[in-house]
């Protein structure tokens, strides 16, 4: 199955080359915030302003989740008084905002990025380390690229088989 390994390597290389990662911005401390600097790899694919708007909205949502204010203090004090057992039955504010973020990302993908051939990943699935943009066009390449290599491989195989027979 040498052909299978070659194809998998090609897919792997194509997959690695087609991902763009936006890292965390730690200039404001340990709060969850992503860099809004426009990556050069997305230059031709997406509008700069659109990208910045998406990242800014994401950052605002995470800031809302981690906001230290009256509501979070109330939640914390109540939890402390119940020996934190309230976390077993109640959804925390952070979890509610995470669901909001998931909906926002889905909406962004459907309306903006999928038509451009891009895919935005929810950072929670990467441990809040990165926001990744996947370029699924690599898969259409996967569709045609391996086929382009299969045909030349198939032909000699068929010839060998027929000669063996």
């Amino acid at each position, binding site marked *: *199955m040498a*052909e*299978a390994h070659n*194809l*998998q390597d090609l*897919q*792997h290389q*194509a*997959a*690695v080359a*087609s*991902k763009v*990662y936006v890292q*965390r911005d*730690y*200039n404001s*401390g*340990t709060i969850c915030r992503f860099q809004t600097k426009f990556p050069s790899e997305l230059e031709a694919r997406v509008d700069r302003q659109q990208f910045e708007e998406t990242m800014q909205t994401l950052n605002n949502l995470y800031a809302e*989740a*981690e*906001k*230290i204010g009256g509501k*979070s*203090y109330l*939640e*914390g*004090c109540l*939890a*402390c008084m119940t*020996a*934190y*057992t309230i*976390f077993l039955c109640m959804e*925390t504010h*952070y*979890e509610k905002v*995470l669901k909001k973020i998931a909906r926002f990302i*889905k909406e962004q*993908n459907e309306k903006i990025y*999928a038509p451009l051939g891009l*895919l935005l*990943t*929810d950072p*929670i*699935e*990467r*441990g809040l*380390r990165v926001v*990744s943009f*996947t370029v*699924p066009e690599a*898969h259409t390449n*996967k*569709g045609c690229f*391996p*086929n382009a290599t*299969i045909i030349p*491989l*198939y032909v000699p*195989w068929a010839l060998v088989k027929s000669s063996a027979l």
Partner: protein
Amino acid sequence: MNNCEYQQIEPLSLPNPTPPPRPAAVEEEEEKARRKWEVFPGKNRFYCDGRFIVAQQSGVLPLTLGLILVTTVLFFVFDCPFLVKHLTVFIPAIGGVLFVFAVISLLQTSFTDPGILPRATPDEAAYIEKQIDNSGSSTYQPPPRTKEVVINQQVVKLKYCFTCKMFRPPRTSHCSLCDNCVERFDHHCPWVGNCVGKRNYRFFYTFIVSLSFLTAFIFGCVATHLALNTQTINVVFDFSSCTAVELVICFLSVWSILGLSGFHTYLVASNLTTNEDIKGSWSGKSEAEDTGNPYSYNNILTNCCSVLCGPMPPSLIDRRGFVPVEQSSQTVSMEMVLPMPAAKEIKVVGGPTPSQLPPSRALQVPSSPLPATPLSLTGRPQFSCLF
């Protein structure tokens, strides 16, 4: 015969249709697939199908629990009846509340994810290395070990973790016992059998505070019992064994636990971690210039509130999510003409494939998710989140 023909065609037509049908088939196979805790690379143990997480060496946790239980039970059995009779009925009530608080917070500290950061996926690690190669000089150098950021006008160095293949966020440290990077790493506590980090620091603090109150309370009650008992004739057996045991345990622990509570109260008030305090990161010992703590709010109350009453961050390791079924093997089977029967077997018997292969290797091969499944993403478990 028509049925046979239809059945023969069906497997061949499965790879071709539009993406939505495939996730349904994948989901069914995912149920036979493993949960993420089963393939977790760190040295942790999981109970109740991934609901509870402890360090590999649970260490002295049974001893801690045993000591607390034994002392409290002895207190209730031998001291409470006397004290209720001579003092007030609130004594066992207070003791009970403190005991419940202490045990619940201990269990929560031990079984909660302390803030483990999942390891970087191979794609991410490659991307970081590629970026460093682009900016750096030679291609064979290992990634630079530090990256500097400015937080609150303070230069903070972020170290690269070679195990987790990422630059550690600020205040994150790699625990060698658990082999994980833990956010806001405080220390690894053998008494509790787990790391103390961002997510369970409040439980840990509640535990030591309630335990110090409990120990002091029991110590006080036993001392009162002794003092009152000298006035009346009593059985020697009572003093020589049980009360003496309680006295010794409480006397020895009250100093250390009170001391620890006091130390952690100072840390909470100044928004420091034990790790930073021990290393002297912000005390300005190593540098001549004034290095203050960039994370502190410079207000004791705000620091306390942010550390203890701040929002509860979620667990990032998604223990109970499913490891995605190998998807690139499916795309290979879809497009390859030659090994079609074999490919179809791989495709149809998607469930056993991940379990046959060692998990880490199985996951590294299909490095990118298919566009189909991510477009239908509704939640975390559907996405590959490699550790």
